[in-house]
Structures are given as structure tokens and as C-alpha cells.
């Protein structure tokens, strides 16, 4: 996993391709186009790029209006502002109205790093997954390859989509040659017997390292990548839990209302078994390097491996 690329960068590249393929694709930004990587699209297609200034509520409303005339708008800003500042605009004028807006939000999670707690969205998955499917899809790509596929497919999918993108570079996840991306599907990345690790976004490659550590200690962990928090791929998750009977969830998001909560709901209703949620627990973020922050919040590969070992030994 040597080669790295941020999912926001993959988003910017995918937009350039979409610009060529689909004249209905337009892009809106809120004065962050360099950071969100929409600036490349803006330079190439200036008449299809709308900088709405530092005014996120209007950004979402305008995107909804464009979608109502048949365009496919991608609305971008940081995740904290997209889902927090403009929550009710997304709720009422995009989701309730069922308008075909793609909210591509970057700088999500702890890995924003040095900007600190005010800028680290740790609640965005919760806000978006609380909206009823199919009026909102919640997608969290694990690496740049998956981000590109999700952005591409989101343009074809009819309906609102939230795409959670990161600032930090992330290694490409090794995938088998048989693998092909399926909208809405979880992916079995590593087969195992003793425990299921469900990871999303930036945490997937870290969970991959944890699986290697566990293997060295004689524990066989199964790793599922969960790129869709909503709709959740229940079948794939339940079929894994059926043989492992233990689950750990890992996300760079609050353990409340994110992937961990979604899994807890599913498991409690369908297949009760021991579950541990790894993520940010009951606090806001703070400044620091992404790796330092992940360590502070117990989200390293060693932390994940330790949690799994403890659960298997129980």
C-alpha cells in the first residue's frame, strides 16, 4: 500500500471526466474550491461552475433549484458546513423534495488534522443517515479508487447522495482482480473466521494492517469495507457475522450515529452478538497531525488489533 491519494483529489479528477461525459453535470462551491478540488472543473468548464461564496444555505438551495430543472449538481464544501450549517436546507429542499443533488463534502473526520475541532466533522454521517433512504444515500469511500467510482456512479444514480471525502492522503486498498464496484454493496476485503471488522473511509487501510497483526498472533479476522452507510448492505454484513459471531466497527466519526450505531441497530435486531464500536467517543476533535489524532483517539492498527484480541479471548 505504497501509493497514496486523498479521496478529495479523486473527486476533483472524477469531476473532470464527468464534465466530458455528461453536460448536465454542474458544480457549486462555497469559496473552498482549491481545498475541495472542484477548481479543476471550474477552470475547464467555467460556465458550469458556480462559486456561491461563503453562503452554504444558499449553495444547497441553489443546487436543489438546478436539479429541479434536470441538471446534476455536485455541491461541495467542507463536511462540517455542508451537513451542519445547511442541514435543514438539505433536509427540506433537497431530501424532502427528492431533488437530484450530490453533496460531495471534503475535510470530514479527525484526519482534517491541524485545523482542529471546529473543522472536524464527527457527526456528519449521523446527520445524513438520519434522513430516510432513498431520499439520501450516504457513501464513504475508503480510497481514491473507490472515491472515483462512487462519484461516477452518483452522477448516474437518480436521487440525493452524500459523499464523505477526506483531506488526507490515503493508501490504495489492495483489491483482487475479480473485484468490481457495486453501488450500495459492502466488500469482503479479507476472509477470516474469528471476528468481523467493519471499517469505513480512511479507517479501512488501518484496519487492513490490524488484520495482518492479528494473523501474526494467530487470530483470523474478516475485514469488510463499508462504503455505504445508507443503504447498509445488510446481507453481506449478516453473512459475515453468522460465522464470526463478533464485530468491531471502526470509523473516524463519533461512535454515536455513525457506522457503529448503524451496525448496532442491525445486529440488535437481526443477529445479536458481541459488538465494539471504535471511533471518537464523547468528545470533539482538536488540532494535531492526522496520525497523532488517530492515536489519541485509540484508532491505530495496534488499537484495533488489541480490541479484536480482547473480544476473541472473552
Amino acid at each position, binding site marked *: 500500500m505504497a501509493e497514496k491519494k486523498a479521496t478529495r483529489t479523486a473527486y476533483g479528477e472524477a469531476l473532470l471526466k464527468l464534465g466530458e461525459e455528461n453536460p448536465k453535470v*454542474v458544480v457549486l462551491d462555497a469559496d473552498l474550491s482549491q481545498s475541495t478540488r472542484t477548481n479543476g472543473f471550474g477552470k475547464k468548464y467555467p*460556465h*458550469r461552475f*458556480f462559486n*456561491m*461564496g461563503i*453562503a452554504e*444555505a*444558499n449553495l*444547497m*438551495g*441553489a*443546487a*436543489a*433549484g*438546478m*436539479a*429541479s*430543472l*434536470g*441538471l446534476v*449538481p455536485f455541491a461541495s464544501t467542507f463536511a462540517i458546513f455542508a451537513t451542519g450549517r445547511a442541514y*435543514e*436546507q438539505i433536509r*427540506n*429542499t433537497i431530501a*424532502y*423534495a*427528492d431533488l437530484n443533488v450530490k453533496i460531495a463534502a471534503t475535510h470530514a473526520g479527525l484526519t482534517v488534522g491541524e485545523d482542529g475541532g471546529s473543522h472536524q466533522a464527527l457527526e456528519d454521517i449521523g446527520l445524513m443517515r438520519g434522513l430516510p433512504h432513498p431520499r439520501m444515500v450516504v457513501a464513504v469511500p475508503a480510497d481514491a479508487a473507490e472515491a472515483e467510482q462512487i462519484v461516477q456512479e452518483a452522477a448516474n444514480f437518480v436521487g440525493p447522495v452524500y459523499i464523505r471525502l477526506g483531506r488526507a492522503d490515503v493508501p490504495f486498498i489492495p483489491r483482487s482482480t475479480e473485484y468490481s464496484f457495486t453501488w450500495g454493496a459492502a466488500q469482503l476485503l479479507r476472509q477470516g473466521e474469528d471476528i468481523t471488522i467493519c471499517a469505513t473511509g480512511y479507517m479501512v487501510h488501518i484496519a487492513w494492517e490490524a488484520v495482518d497483526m492479528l494473523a501474526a498472533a494467530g487470530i483470523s479476522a474478516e475485514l469488510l469495507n463499508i462504503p455505504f452507510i445508507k443503504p447498509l448492505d445488510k446481507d453481506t454484513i449478516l453473512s459475515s457475522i453468522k460465522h464470526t459471531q463478533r464485530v468491531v466497527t471502526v470509523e473516524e466519526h463519533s461512535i454515536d450515529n455513525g457506522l457503529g450505531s448503524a451496525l448496532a441497530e442491525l445486529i440488535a435486531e437481526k443477529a445479536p452478538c458481541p459488538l465494539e464500536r471504535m471511533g471518537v467517543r464523547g468528545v470533539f476533535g482538536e488540532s494535531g497531525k492526522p496520525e497523532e489524532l488517530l492515536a489519541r483517539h485509540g484508532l491505530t492498527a495496534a488499537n484495533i488489533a488489541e480490541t479484536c484480541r480482547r473480544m476473541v479471548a472473552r
Partner: protein
Amino acid sequence: MASLQELTQIACQIRQDIISSLAEAKSGHPGGSLSAVEILTALYFEVLRVNPEHPAWENRDRFVLAKGHAAPALYATLAAKGFFPTSELKTLRRLGSRLQGHPDALKTPGVDLSTGSLGQGLSAAVGMALAARYLQLPTRVYALLGDGELQEGQVWEAAMSASHYQLGGLVAIIDHNGLQIDGPLASVLNPMPLDAKFAAFGWEVISCDGHSFPELLTALAAAQKSQEQPTVIIAQTVKGKGVKFMEGDPDWHGKALTADDAVKALAQLQQSIAAKEEG
């Protein structure tokens, strides 16, 4: 072109339908529905290029009822225009009805945007106007806002973006009845002066009597000539217009009509029609 007399008759019918549907629903917003009747009548019967036979016609003009609580007025107008049967108005706010408490574009033929949460409609109208320009459609976009709604900061974000993007095809109409739920605008949170604010945001500003068809039609015709500037029509109106015991009383913003209220209101409206016919 409808004659003034025809427009007046349509407006009278719409007022009666508003009262009847609200009385049937036993909840809803009479005051701000009645203040918007002439504005809606002028738009739907003289200005908007829409086709009730083909509500989704791509090249049509778009209308956004940003003050979504005036849904009874919009529904009565759409029914009068032929988008759905007038008999359906009695299902307003009922479980399973196409006529939701606030406009739902997924349910009601002729409704271009789901609204209800104040402050958001003008932003969507900006997006519609941007899209119409990019798609090279002949579409013009009209949004009807309440004056209390102007307290929402998002309206001014939208106003800024409309002039920045030189949206000459966008017209905002303010139903300026001067009242909101908690009382007069000036006592709740004063948004005045409206004309100077919109002018400072780069809009062409026209003021008119929002119950006078000649004035409204002149204002709307002038707005259509704008090439690069969005236009706002500040339409001076009376909340509860047409029903004497409701006029100018903020209590009637969202108060339900009893059966007695409805009888009295309908009698007044019919009297005023008779008076106009004699006059």
C-alpha cells in the same frame, strides 16, 4: 388576455375556495393566503407560461411559493387554472391528500418546488434561473416571499447571488402585508426598508399595490424587460384581504376557521362580488 373584470372574478372565486378549504381542514393559514390572491391570479392568468395539460412541460416558467404556508391560495389558483379539479380542494391537509399543509411538488400537479421552511425558496429560484440560462430554456422564474420571511439570512445570501450572476430572468415578489405571527414586523424584528435593501443588493426594485391588477400587471411587465438585473416587486398588501374581520389582524395568520367564521367570511366575499357587479 383576461379582462380586469375576469381577473377580479377569478380572484373572488379563489378567495372563496381558500375560505372553504381552510374551514374544511380546520387548520391552516388564512391571513397570508388571502393577501396573496391578486398576485397569484395575475401570475397564473396573465404572466406564467404554464400548461395545466402538461404540468411538467420543460420550457414552462417556474413559480416558487417561498412563503409555503400560503399553500391554500396556491392550490385554489392551480385548481382555477385547471391543474386539478376544484372539488379536490376540500381534501386540503387530510391524510392521503395530494394537497399537503405546505406545497409538495412530488404530490401536487403544478407545484414546481416543495416549500414550507421559510427562507429557502429564493435560493432554489436562483438555482432554477441559473439552470434555465445554462440549458438555454426560455424559462423565467418567479418567487413569492413573505415580508416576515425576509428576516431569514438565507434570503439575503440568495439576493446577493442573484445579482452577482445577473439573473435578469428572476423575479421575486414580496407579499408585503406587514404582519407576522407574533405581530407587526416592526415590533418583532424590523426588516425595513425593503426597497433600499434590495437596491443595495443590486436588484431592480418596483413597488406597487398588491391588490390592484393594473399595478401588478404593469410591475410584472416591467420586470420582464430586465436583462441583467433580478427584479423585486414589493407588493403592498393587506393580511386577510377581503374578509373584514381578518384584515390586519395577526391572529388570523394561522388560526383555524370555525364553521361560523366560514359562513360569515363567504357571505362577505359574495357581497363584495355583488357590489362590484353593480358598480
